[in-house]
């Protein structure tokens, strides 16, 4: 009676990396964050992970979050994974968003807004700036509070002298980030007058859908990997 498909078997370590990416495009953003450069020829997932000192368990874990809509790794799975590396990955993702993805979208946005009535373009530009401020604030909070807390818990396993945050303090609102990004997407898709360059607009929207998807996965990683693991570590340190 259990016919739920197991995707982990479809993305096996023996698989050629190129095949994996061709099948699951969204994984493309993951590679640079893990320090795996493109141009890998016929090498397998396994070979590339070994070559670039990336834990294969970590690669599988991240890939499954990207590929499987309802993947919730068990604590057992998480325990086999180098958690410090996950933190590093999340931090690399933040950097990627701020240094590449957002500036890219801003470039599109500026071109798009330029021919518009100032009254409207300023409005949208301001909305975007406010949104970006929220995102930066959210990332900073994670990097200054959540990640160090977890690192500390990882390093002193019986974390008695660690000041315990209430775990709900970490139940962050990345939902808001996704929602606002979707709001912006809808504004640009539906309500900006038609005379604005359509190819620029299409490019921008495609980028925004991709970013929204990626940020969604990022949020899933925090909700389904980071928070449960922090709770697990906390429960261990109380025993």
């Amino acid at each position: 009676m259990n016919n739920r498909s197991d995707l982990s078997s479809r993305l096996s370590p023996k698989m050629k990396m190129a095949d994996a990416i061709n099948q699951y495009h969204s994984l493309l953003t993951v590679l640079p964050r893990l320090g795996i450069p493109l141009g890998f020829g016929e090498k397998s997932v396994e070979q590339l992970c070994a070559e670039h000192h990336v834990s294969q368990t970590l690669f599988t874990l991240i890939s499954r979050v990207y590929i499987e809509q309802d993947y919730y790794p068990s604590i057992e799975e998480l325990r086999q994974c180098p958690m410090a590396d996950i933190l590093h990955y999340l931090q690399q993702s933040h950097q990627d968003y701020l240094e590449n993805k957002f500036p890219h979208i801003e470039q599109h946005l500026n071109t798009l807004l330029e021919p518009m009535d100032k009254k409207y373009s300023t409005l949208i530009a301001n909305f975007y700036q406010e949104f970006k401020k929220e995102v930066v604030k959210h990332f900073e909070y994670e990097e200054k509070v959540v990640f160090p807390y977890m690192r500390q818990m990882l390093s002193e396993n019986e974390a008695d002298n660690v000041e315990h945050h209430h775990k709900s303090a970490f139940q962050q609102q990345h939902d808001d980030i996704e929602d606002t990004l979707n709001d912006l997407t809808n504004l640009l898709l539906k309500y900006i007058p038609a005379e604005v360059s359509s190819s620029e607009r299409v490019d921008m929207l495609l980028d925004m859908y991709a970013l929204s998807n990626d940020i969604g996965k990022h949020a899933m990683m925090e909700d389904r990997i980071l928070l449960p693991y922090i709770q697990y570590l906390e429960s261990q340190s109380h025993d």
Partner: protein
Amino acid sequence: MIKIVIAEPSQMLRSGLACLLRDVPDSEVVFSTDNLNALFSRLPALHADILIINPLLFDYGHRATLRAEFDNYPELRLIGLVTSYLESQQLRQFSGIIELNDDLQRVKSTINLVVNTLQSEGDEPDTDPLSDREKEVLICLSKGLKNNEIADTLNISVHTVITHRKNIVRKTGIKSVAALTVYAILNNLIEEKDII
């Protein structure tokens, strides 16, 4: 609010499941029972969205066609609570399956999946533009008014304000007040100077 009914012979399972479901947001277990008689006598008044039912409540002859017993409730989605082996033909009647060893996350995602199909089927593609009333509510929102203030201004109940807000979000696909304000200005519903 998603209204859930549970029909399951074992009290332990009923209570356990109801307990898990407390963590499913925007949902409520409105009735739970161990027998079909009680279920069918209460169902008409409950306006339930989801029925989580153990197929074993039906005798073998009716099990494969149990969906037909709920023909009077076309809106109702069935989730099978599976405690023993069932033939796939029987399982196919359900929009989702909950198994004994499912954890909270799995139960949540099953329910979400079923709820999402519920919503997408229920949502007629809404191509109407905003109604005059909805526009008025939107203007108030953009000016920073709270629900109760909007209710006072427009002389309608807070409940009605909330309904209008839901419709605005559904039609525009825009959730945040900040973005709705941008929408209002782009559509010349308000002037920028009207915003505080």
